[in-house]
């Protein structure tokens, strides 16, 4: 809903031209045709399923679920208001921001989907390839364009990859899903090393900017960290190189066992060296053919869409004083911006007791107002199920904080133990073995005390309700995996994972804990850290130093309290 008191601002981001608009609207009509053929019986469910998945529509535990693409996590206020409207009109008034920076709606009717897609197309949004065995939403660092840590904004390249992969005729029936992330810093806020393929913007020895390409990372049943495929790909060659990787994957992946069909399995089976060889061979040919070369003027053209906003000059770089609560929030949720007088503000959708990552339509509308008033009409969705206002003036932070308190999104907990990632789990998901949201809520409530949280410091808890690992538990400092043991929900602890540039796969501790025991088990594990930590160590560091043993002993109560 447009607030008459707030002027809608259009941020600098990719804008559809007539070709993009036509593409999306034709896709909507194509899907409307497929829905009609399904309803009439011309298409069986088996035939319709891959088609609806490639338009983001799942059949879940209670109803259809629609996954709306948020390319590289970037939304305008106009888009946020439309999402609020759709959430209100076609769903039960709340949506969920996911670990791939998309938005999920849980109570969708199949017959409404064409209308929803048309509404999304009105604001340059879609659900194309948010599911299915194809290239999925391309994600990027949520601080893109705002941080001084990046070589350049990764989103223009992410947009170019998005277009290249949209209904790519060769790659829409891959062996499995294919997830791509783009980063531009040494610090990895996009969990690049856990993606099927990742592109990191780098500088070579001559100072020329190019791309490091990695492949074979993944979560799921068998987690892997990605391998470097090529240290430096020239700008103009990047699409040819990505096409080469996809082609090798499409040809050579197994098709006989759905659990062994991600690219991580292929690379692990043939070895990264052999993979690099096969890719190099394809790449040389594709490059020579010339049709996929990326000219500098095209890169410049797309980059221009993402030009930084006009930052005010002469602003004070001092952080305003606005009370102790505000100061607490700043210490965790406000990050350094490249422009003096500016800041990056993280809105954690993780107030203890809330469903992680959820927002009501009213909250979305208010956030849209905040975006317009304070953040040049722009917000980012993060893979940690939070939101980021990328360009705010420091002097506006107290007003922003006050508004967030009204929204109940002012928890000063970014990166702390209550900033938990949880998949929808058995409450919503057809694939789940156990519920994850109530576990997140119980742990967050247990550790609610702010001084306690601050004392514990950075601790990333990630909860998945099944082995598909949509909660990214393998990458949690403390990961929790819900399992079904003879019809009862049990929760396994996994320690020492990381999705950042120091990527590691968590180690399974042992037998699971019951629903009412798991929060206490987490507490015992945390207490080991508090008792044993050395100066400056995060939980993850202490774990890496000590190993599993002391944490395991404490968790299973083998040590005196």
């Amino acid at each position, binding site marked *: 809903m447009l607030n008459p008191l707030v002027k809608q601002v259009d941020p600098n981001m990719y804008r559809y031209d007539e070709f993009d608009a036509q593409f999306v609207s034709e896709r909507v009509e194509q899907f409307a045709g497929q829905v009609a053929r*399904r*309803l*009439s*019986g011309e298409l*069986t*469910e088996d035939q319709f399923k891959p088609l609806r998945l490639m338009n983001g529509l799942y*059949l*879940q*535990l*209670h*109803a*259809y679920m629609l996954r709306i693409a948020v390319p590289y996590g970037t939304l305008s206020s106009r888009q946020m208001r439309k999402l609020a409207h759709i959430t209100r009109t076609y769903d*039960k008034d*709340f949506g969920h921001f996911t670990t791939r920076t998309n938005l999920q709606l*849980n*109570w*969708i*009717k*199949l*017959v409404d989907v064409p209308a929803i897609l048309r509404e999304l197309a009105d604001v340059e949004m879609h659900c194309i390839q948010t599911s299915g065995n194809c290239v999925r939403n391309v994600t990027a660092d949520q601080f893109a364009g705002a941080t001084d840590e990046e070589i350049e904004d990764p989103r223009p390249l992410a947009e170019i990859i998005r277009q290249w992969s949209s209904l790519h005729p060769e790659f829409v029936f891959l062996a499995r899903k294919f997830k791509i992330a783009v980063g531009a810093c040494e610090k990895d806020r996009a969990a690049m090393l856990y993606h099927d393929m990742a592109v990191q913007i780098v500088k070579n020895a001559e100072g020329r900017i190019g791309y490091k390409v990695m492949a074979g990372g993944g979560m799921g049943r068998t987690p892997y960290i990605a391998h470097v495929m090529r240290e430096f790909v020239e700008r103009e060659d990047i699409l040819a190189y990505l096409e080469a990787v996809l082609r090798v994957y499409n040809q050579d992946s197994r098709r006989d066992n759905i659990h062994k069909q991600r690219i991580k399995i292929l690379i692990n089976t043939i070895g990264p060296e052999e993979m690099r060889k096969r890719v190099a061979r394809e790449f040389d040919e594709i490059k020579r053919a010339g049709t996929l070369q990326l000219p500098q003027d095209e890169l410049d053209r797309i980059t221009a869409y993402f030009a930084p906003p006009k930052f005010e000059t002469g602003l004070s770089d001092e952080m305003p004083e606005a009370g102790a609560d505000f100061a607490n929030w700043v210490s965790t949720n406000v990050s350094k911006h490249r422009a003096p007088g500016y800041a990056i503000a993280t809105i954690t959708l993780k107030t203890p007791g809330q*469903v992680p990552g959820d927002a009501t339509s009213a909250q979305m509308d208010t956030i849209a107002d905040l975006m317009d008033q304070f953040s040049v009409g722009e917000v980012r969705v993060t893979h940690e199920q939070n939101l980021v206002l990328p360009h705010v003036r420091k002097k506006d932070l107290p007003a922003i904080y006050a508004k967030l308190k009204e929204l109940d999104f002012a928890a000063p907990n970014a990166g702390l133990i209550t900033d938990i990632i949880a998949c929808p789990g*058995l*409450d*919503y998901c057809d694939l*789940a073995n*156990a*519920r994850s*949201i*109530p576990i997140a*809520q119980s742990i967050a409530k247990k550790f609610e005390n702010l001084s306690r949280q601050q004392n514990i410091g950075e601790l990333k808890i990630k909860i998945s309700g099944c082995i598909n690992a949509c909660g990214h538990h393998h990458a949690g400092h403390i990961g929790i995996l819900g399992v*079904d043991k003879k*019809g*009862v*929900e049990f929760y396994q602890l996994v320690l020492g994972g990381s999705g950042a540039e120091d990527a590691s796969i968590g180690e399974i501790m042992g037998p699971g804990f019951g629903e009412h025991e798991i929060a206490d088990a987490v507490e015992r594990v945390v207490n080991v850290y508090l008792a044993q930590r050395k100066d400056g160590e995060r939980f993850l560091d202490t774990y890496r130093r000590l190993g599993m043993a002391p944490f395991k002993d404490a968790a299973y109560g083998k040590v005196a309290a």
Partner: protein
Amino acid sequence: MLTANRLRDGDVLYRKGSGWVPMLADAEVYPDQASADAALAAATAETLRNEIVAPYLFEVRDVNGKIVPVKEREIIRAAGPTVHPHTGKQAGQINA
């Protein structure tokens, strides 16, 4: 018991006789494998008529005279999400 989703809106349904009802409590319990399999076969044939999708059987048991699913998943599916008690069948939200 036998459950499925309504094709057009995804609503969860339970088999009763040769029709479907929204609430598990009103649905039919099949006392043996043979009758359950027959019901599933009939429902699967019905999917070709595009009213329902994904029919499957699940176990229930009698708990103090009340029919309760054995699996947690089916309990949640019959009632609604535990974390949003104001939504779903538990809140009386049933599509026509």
